[in-house]
């Protein structure tokens, strides 16, 4: 009896240890068709051989020096950073009251508000950009509004400039900021708010001393996600900024698609990767340091 029990237990264990092998196909897939190609980009960016040697040969940092010596590259990097950051911040300011409304509304209104945020998120990026192009047109609602308010006398040409890109970015990332923020607000401990309110705190001071500090991780997460989405988006800057107002991604596209310049393309890709990795790492480090203060999540 004891021995059958033992064997059956061992049988279970042996299957279980075998089960870990189920991860292997995915690991293998990513190693071969994800990590290896990324390494090849890294390799090509420091290759001293002719650009047609796609697996690279030799070693040089010349391509990086050339890239950073070009004032256009620096301008594009700086532009990508500030446009992504400003768009993320404005998106956050718009998302915050919206997310609070999601958390405070009754079930029907909440469903409506969430659906409105999900709708653009599940629609094609190019379609979303079409929508922004329509709204920003010469006779579009934004120009009409500005003229009605007397802020401008002539319709403004938004497309292919910073305003179009910032507006497009905000629209693009808004759902990605609203949804985590709403989830963070829903997780807040209602007893804290009740206690503060019982003790006579006003709504404004509750918001400032309890809600806002507890939401800092959600707010930071939303901003980081928005920033990286803006930084790495291609369709939005491609259609709203075009060739005349390049971001890092569209500069990469120009080098690859129009100029067939694989090596410069690889250099830009590495720069983009570094910016994203540094941002994410800085955020993670900051979050870990704060982890003692905020409840583990």
């Amino acid at each position, binding site marked *: 009896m004891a021995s059958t029990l033992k064997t059956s237990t061992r049988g279970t264990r042996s299957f279980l240890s075998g089960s870990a092998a189920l*991860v292997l196909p995915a690991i293998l897939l990513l190693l071969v068709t994800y990590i290896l190609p990324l390494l090849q980009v890294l390799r090509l960016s420091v290759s001293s051989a002719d650009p047609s040697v796609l697996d690279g040969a030799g070693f040089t940092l010349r391509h990086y020096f050339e890239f950073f010596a070009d004032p256009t590259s620096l301008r594009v990097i700086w532009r990508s950073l500030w446009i992504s950051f400003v768009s993320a911040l404005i998106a956050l300011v718009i998302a915050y009251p919206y997310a609070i409304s999601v958390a405070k509304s009754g079930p029907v209104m909440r469903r409506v508000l969430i659906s409105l945020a999900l*709708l653009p998120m599940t629609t094609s990026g190019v379609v979303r950009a079409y929508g922004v192009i329509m709204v920003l047109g010469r006779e579009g609602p934004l120009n009409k509004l500005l003229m009605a308010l007397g802020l401008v006398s002539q319709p403004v040409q938004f497309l292919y400039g910073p305003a179009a890109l910032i507006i497009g970015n905000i629209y693009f990332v808004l759902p990605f900021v609203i949804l985590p923020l709403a989830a963070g607000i829903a997780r807040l401990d209602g007893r804290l708010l009740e206690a503060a309110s019982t003790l006579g705190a006003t709504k404004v001071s509750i918001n400032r001393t309890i809600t806002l500090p507890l939401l800092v991780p959600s707010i930071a997460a939303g901003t980081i996600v928005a920033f990286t989405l803006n930084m790495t988006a291609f369709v939005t800057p491609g259609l709203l900024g075009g060739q005349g107002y390049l971001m890092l991604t569209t500069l990469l596209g120009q080098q690859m698609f129009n100029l067939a310049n694989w090596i410069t393309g690889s250099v830009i890709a590495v720069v983009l990767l570094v910016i994203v990795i540094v941002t994410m790492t800085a955020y993670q480090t900051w979050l870990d340091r704060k982890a003692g203060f905020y409840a583990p999540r």
Partner: protein
Amino acid sequence: MRQDSSRSRLANVSFGDAFRYVATSFGAVILVLPMLAVIVSSFGETAYARFPPQGFTLHWYTAFDEVPGLIASLIYSLKLSLIVTAMSVALALLSAIGLTLRVISGRALITSFLMLPLVLPSIVVGLALMLFFSAFWTADYFTGLVIGHLVISFSYALRSILPALETFDRNLWAASRTLGANPWQAFQTILAPIAMPSVLSAALFAFLISFDNYNVSAFLQDPLTPPLPVVLYNQAEQALSPVLMAVSSALILFSVVLVALFGKYLISTGK
């Protein structure tokens, strides 16, 4: 005194709430207006899409073939995305089971590794795979696209499934196996019901990510039959035809149906 303070609090509340309503409505307008503009301008009579449109016609909804390659690309993209979805979900389910059935060392590291495509820019992946296929592996266009979409969609699928399986009690599995269930039976009766909602959400994300993908497709496309987002993107570089607005409206309608039917599966794990 007491009444005073409660009144002032009341005034405070209504002012704050009023401000919030205005701000929320503003957010709602931003979310809705571009979609609305696309739909409304698809009914205009002018040869180029305008918003607000002039006149009213349904003509553009019957003229999808006016944009060369549009219908072919739609079919191509659907086929591609459905294949990618099936593969992503299967692979993600396998990986999630492998990561949760047993405590394995290095689990956190493996998980972060498998989630990398969520973090790193997809445009870099597109470029990387293009170079990879040119230098090391001459795959046909379709295979290349399947692989390019798969590595990204897989991570989204895994992110949906893994948290659901993490709440699963391993003892249930051990108990069922001790009681004589074979792995397949144990999977069907114990794991599958727990994983089911997350598998649905994984499939939705995998499909949407693939169907909407431009950044990888632009690098790996077959120039003769590009996927739908590439066709839509290339068309937008010229003046926009109302046919594009009609197609886009159809895509928006598809999203409306998706959100109405499966909205709750999209938020629990929303990015």
